[in-house]
């Protein structure tokens, strides 16, 4: 259509991905990208909320519950993202991640701890060789309101300090203004700056507001090379919700069906109880498929949920509940 449509920078080709032609063309230039995203099938809010509420009634008992609790613990990105974070706080968190329940050392460790870039050196030192990854937010988290230079510098601080994963935020202002090309190119630039670190792209679904936008942002991030699509920063309400995660799980499932490549999903914020976590796992199992039931492909961005998971795990093993004081507060 418009000859002035700007060609877009493309994600670096990796050995594993050869996109089918219709997807390779989707992001060739701004006009194509816009057409592709606006041409995705809509999401009916009544229908998706009914489906999510229906799946949330699954009754997970006995052996399947214990399996779910262990899996959920191993998927936690234990998070502290406060202005008041200190090296002491981060060390405590790292210890908790490696040994969530000292009374039951067979409790799995969490997937990662998630901190601000300046806390990465502390976290890396503490977690050395533990199998727990370090994840760092970057790119002017949580608002994303800065220049690309600042975002790249922010990312570089964390990557140079040895982070395993980067959690970036998209420019929601650009997305809502319809400037999809900007969002796309920024993700590509940060992905390049990540080196070997896996990139989680935070859509901040609470600010995108509609399920249609969540689906578009998910595809935009996947096209730009996101390893994970992540719901929220945790600083905006609503954070993760089941129907939003349904849309994102469907997106990675469709992505795999079309490209053969499996990408990951991370809900963050608002997941406080073991029951919440198990509902998400049911959605993972039945919407995306059992091959996503793996910490490599699904994470929980959370802090308080870990202690409830531990308490429920103990209740399964002991046959009774113990008080909150039997679980460490870190």
């Amino acid at each position, binding site marked *: 259509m418009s000859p002035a449509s700007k060609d877009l920078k493309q994600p670096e080709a990796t050995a594993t991905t050869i996109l089918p032609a219709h997807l390779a063309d989707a992001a060739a230039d701004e006009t194509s990208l816009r057409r592709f995203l606006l041409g995705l*099938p809509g999401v009916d809010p009544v*229908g998706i909320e009914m*489906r999510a509420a229906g799946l949330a009634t*699954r009754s997970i008992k006995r052996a399947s519950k214990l399996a779910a609790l262990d899996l959920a613990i191993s998927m936690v990105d234990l998070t502290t993202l406060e202005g008041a974070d200190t090296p002491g706080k981060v060390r405590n968190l790292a210890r908790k991640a490696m040994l969530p329940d000292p009374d039951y050392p067979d409790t799995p460790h969490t997937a990662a701890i998630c901190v601000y870039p300046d806390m990465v050196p502390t976290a890396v030192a503490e977690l050395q060789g533990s199998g727990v990854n370090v994840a760092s937010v970057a790119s002017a988290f949580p608002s994303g309101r800065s220049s690309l230079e600042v975002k790249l510098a922010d990312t570089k601080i964390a990557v140079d300090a040895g982070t395993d994963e980067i959690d970036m935020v998209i420019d929601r202002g650009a997305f809502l203004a319809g400037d999809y090309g900007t969002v796309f190119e920024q993700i590509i630039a940060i992905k390049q700056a990540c080196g070997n670190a896996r990139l989680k792209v935070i859509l901040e679904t609470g600010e995108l507001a509609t399920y249609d936008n969540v689906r578009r942002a998910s595809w935009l991030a996947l096209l730009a090379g996101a390893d994970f699509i992540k719901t929220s920063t945790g600083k905006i309400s609503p954070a993760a919700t089941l129907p939003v995660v349904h849309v994102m799980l469907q997106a990675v499932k469709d992505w795999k069906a079309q490209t053969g490549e499996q990408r990951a999903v991370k809900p963050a914020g608002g997941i406080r109880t073991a029951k919440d976590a198990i509902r998400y796992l049911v959605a993972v199992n039945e919407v995306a498929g059992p091959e996503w039931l793996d910490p490599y492909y699904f994470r929980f961005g959370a802090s308080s949920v870990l202690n409830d998971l531990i308490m429920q795990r103990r209740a399964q093993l002991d046959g009774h509940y113990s008080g909150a004081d039997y679980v460490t507060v870190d």
Partner: protein
Amino acid sequence: MEWEYSPAPESSAIADIKDRYLPFIDGSFKEGSGEDRDTINPGTGERLSTVSTVEASDVDRAVKAARRAYQDVWSQLPGAERGKYLFRIARAIAERSRELAVVETLDNGKPIKETRDFDVPAAAQHFFYHAGWADKLQHLGLGPAPRPLGVAGQVIPWNFPLLMAAWKIAPALAAGNTVVIKPAETTPLSILVLAEIIADADLPPGVVNIVTGAGDVGSALLNHSGIDKVAFTGSTAVGRRLQRELAGTGRKITLELGGKGANIIFEDAAQDQAVEGIINGIFFNQGQVCCAGSRLLVQESIADEFIERLKQRVETLRVGDPMDKNTDVGAINSEAQLGRITALMDAGLAEGAELWSSSCPLPKNGFYLAPSIFTNATPSMRIAREEIFGPVLTTMTFRTPDEAVTKANNSPYGLSAGVWTEKGSRAMGMAAALRSGVIWDNTFNRFDPAASFGGYKESGFGREGGPSGLDAYLDTDDEAVVR
């Protein structure tokens, strides 16, 4: 990781199933003069309980009791007092909801998830809704002084035993009529638990009478000279016969019969939700729903990919023990019904349609059928014209909206239809053009006591629910008012 959900069975002890149940006539449970009938648990194929059935003489007693109750008590009560009884029944259904859900699942075979989350709450809602109308009949918009008809004879099917009882009893009572009702012979239990609730609510004797037995009892009831109103939900064949038998009697009659609902998917639909809606439309209650969306019409431009998505999703449905809280699709109500379904499926194969069935494992005992989809069906095939009344979807394609309307309307039935499009103007245009009593826009199988339900053509006439549902139980003739 493969994650098997551990069995999560609801406790059958909650139902407290008795060894034998009696019909409910004139305010008490009485031995029927007919032979005992066993009722089978479709989930296991084993005997669940035994029910004493009635003969014509018992039907006569029940109708006379209903007449007496109508003349002496019920028609004399102010509407507000009738409403109090209905509210009391509604509350008791809610209070005993878990027990009712288990009874219904054991007797009918539908999953506990559905009885718990749909059948029982919806039955309570129906009583609540009509309780509110009992003292407001003059505000229905049906004239200044609508009056009750008298004694209503009602026959209900086995697919929603408790809910259909509520659909029939609640409006009849709210309007001031008394009732003699017959449940289906394969599912008599939940309405007999409802009879306990009715007795506990101190409803005057004879206002609600429940007679048990097979079709002969229903026939004796609906042809009884002492009834003023006939309400029947069931097959079109029986409905047709009833109309012949009752012609000229002057009795008010409503029929809610079969259907072959079209579920129409346009290329611009919200596809993932349309998939869910199709599943809800045809696999809800194992497809044994008169308004099931049993004919899928997909726009040809998206058909292949869409049907592939649908199959993938159907593959994840959990079929099995109806008492397990994680079961999505339960048992077919009876061996006879399972036989009727498979016979029609054989006809579909013989006529050249392609059959796909979910690979889900099925329990050894009980009456089960894997969710199935026929593709490459043509409108002339029996599977595209006749009501299968089972978890079997027949799929056809269309090219333009006009063709979709023509194909959807090309059926002797006209009960339900679904339209899936993100374009509001198209949805409204389709709704105006489709000859169906119920049309769902971007959803399917949703019910509300305030929304009237009923069919066009051979799907019956008369409406249930909402003000027009009450109309079926009221004399609104202007001359009657003047007189």
